[in-house]
């Protein structure tokens, strides 16, 4: 990997206790939302993180910013260990890492004006002293995201979904971050508005030299905006590589199935297409299959898949990594079955 890594996760785990509750105090099991993720986000790139609902992609995004505490592994941000930061260090880290959320209706305070929302990070981080300078900066930020600075005095309900998402982006940019995490930032928008926001994010990324982590279930959108793509399945990154390679010649059977399930707006191509239709559902993250976690749905499953947990290994294009035994059996043999992992799902 290149020297210029901004954010890096090694063996990152976020496990939640589940069940129990009520009068039984002890948790009944472990939900392995993020379960041993190795991932580097390079400075100045857009990394797309795709996966289906429940695969842990949002939890991973949150864990990178320590919005949820990791239960294992490490995260480094620009060389410093995020898990070991004190309050002051964490505050500075969060200035340098912004977040855009999925639902622009829920992520803005309905009782605060756009100006109040966008200027809060300026106040918190002491970036502009004086009301007038903050107001000027809010105007700049709104202009940057394509809104008229004159709307600063308005409330969120006066805006459409797309405009609210722009306000959310302006707020995330207020701290002059290096790193921006967009968690399903276009999922709740209409198609024509999605395109506006995608174009905006791409422009901002270039203009400001941002490093972007674009989390989405929409492979087409991820393919469009990303330099590299990471694919998650059941708490683990199972494939990562250049967008062109992962988006057109994936090496991991799950990515292949995911890609073949994405509907294309071309009738002739759609009719000619051979879909890989996976059987069954994603196993529960509180009962992860032992060995390869995709083996219960994989069309190519063979002997080592049951008892060797595959590690990411080079496959396909330069810089492309896949966690699959088809490229050679590499990984950790399964000896004991930890809690939340089932040997025979």
């Amino acid at each position, binding site marked *: 990997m290149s020297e210029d890594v901004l954010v890096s996760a090694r063996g990152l785990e976020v496990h939640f206790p589940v069940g129990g509750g009520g009068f039984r105090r002890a948790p009944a099991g472990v939900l392995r939302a993020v379960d041993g993720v190795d991932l580097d986000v390079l400075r100045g790139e857009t990394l797309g993180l795709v996966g*289906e609902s429940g695969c842990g992609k949002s939890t991973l995004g949150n864990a990178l910013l320590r919005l949820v505490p990791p239960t294992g592994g490490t995260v480094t941000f620009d060389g410093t260990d995020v898990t070991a930061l004190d309050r002051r260090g964490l505050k500075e880290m969060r200035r340098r890492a912004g977040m855009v959320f999925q639902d622009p209706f829920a992520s803005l305070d309905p009782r605060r004006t756009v100006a109040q929302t966008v200027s809060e990070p300026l106040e918190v981080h002491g970036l502009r002293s004086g009301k007038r300078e903050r107001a000027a900066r809010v105007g700049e930020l709104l202009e940057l995201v394509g809104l008229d600075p004159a709307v600063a005095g308005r409330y969120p309900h006066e805006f459409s979904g*797309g405009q609210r998402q722009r306000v959310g982006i302006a707020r995330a940019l207020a701290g002059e971050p290096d790193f921006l995490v967009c968690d399903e930032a276009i999922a709740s928008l209409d198609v024509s508005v999605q395109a506006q926001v995608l174009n905006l994010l791409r422009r901002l990324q270039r203009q400001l030299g941002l490093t972007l982590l674009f989390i989405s279930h929409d492979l087409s959108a991820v393919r469009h905006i990303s330099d590299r793509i990471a694919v998650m399945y059941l708490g683990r990154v199972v494939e990562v590589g250049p967008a062109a390679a992962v988006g057109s010649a994936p090496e991991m059977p799950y990515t292949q199935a995911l890609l073949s399930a994405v509907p294309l707006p071309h009738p002739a191509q759609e009719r000619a297409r051979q879909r890989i*239709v996976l059987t069954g559902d994603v196993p529960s993250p509180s009962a992860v299959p032992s060995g390869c976690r995709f083996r219960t749905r994989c069309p190519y499953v063979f002997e080592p898949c049951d008892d060797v947990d595959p590690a990411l290994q080079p496959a396909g294009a330069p810089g492309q990594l896949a966690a699959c035994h088809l490229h050679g059996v590499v990984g950790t043999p399964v000896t004991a079955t930890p809690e939340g992992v089932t040997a025979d799902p």
Partner: protein
Amino acid sequence: MTAGEPVLEVEDLRVRLRTPRGPADVVNGLSYTVGAGETVAVVGESGSGKSVSVLALLGLLPARVATVTGRALLQGEDLLTMAPDRLRQVRGAGAGMVFQDPMTSLNPVLTIGRQLVEGIRAHGDVSKADARSRAAELLREVGLPDPEGALDRYPHELSGGMRQRVVIAIALSNSPSLLIADEATTALDVTVQAQIIDLIEGLQDEHGTGVIWITHDLGVVAGIADRVLVMYGGRCVEDGTVDDVLERPAHPYTRGLLGSLPDLAAPVGPDGEVPELTAIPGLPPPPTDLPQGCVFWPRCPVRADPRCETEQPPLAVVSRAPAGGPAGATASGAYTGDGAGLPHRAATWCTEGVDGGSRG
């Protein structure tokens, strides 16, 4: 597939809703037909009136706020003037409906079995035991593992994809001639969406059901539809065969919609650069205040005709079916059974330079 009588004929459907901001014209003169075994996709963004148009068909809009006019013949019977008792019989037996969210369209406190049996017994004199075995058979048909056991489970015990299968089983329990799927796969993951689409297509082939597929996802449309109807501002702005509409879009809105779509199959430049999306600026018009001329005029990048602003363009034929196919369509665009030969129509003044030019 059996050609012939259309299952559903909708003519000049209009829906006006009473809202605090004044009357909203949500659907403005929609006409289409659905043949047996045919899939018609109704495409549009939120607020385009696509869901309201089908809710109106089945009388599911509250009468206090909605005024529905026009004609909608389901196998010859007008749904809009039907007596409430008859309409109750038709819902389910004549037309089944699958809604977007399988979490909310099932009753959480009743078992899957009870919800299926209720539908089966409401439309026929069936004993409880027979209805139960029919229910298990339906669940098997939609691909639920362990159908017998699933009858005694509650909705929360099933995954989203499995719940949607149950909803489809309920919709199909009385072998309706028409199935309306309103954003039926939108809440599902793509791999599950592929399973559900396969399932509905298989069942459709088997039973010759006509399907209205409402969606905002043009990718899904390309895979399943025979015919596409693009809605904007409560009007049909373009319709035709799926190939015509998606590969040779004539209306600037349809072209904008397709241009806004990140495309996995799009060619990549030599530097690995994916071209910028051509987003449509602005927002759809509110149904309480529709533009006087072309509904798309306020956002349209073309505006090539002086009439755009002031005069509403009619839905006119932009091109006949390619030579070779018999002109099987009548002037009103009625479906004649073979899918080919349908006119490609668009409601726009700006069709020049479109005909024949396919998008990249």
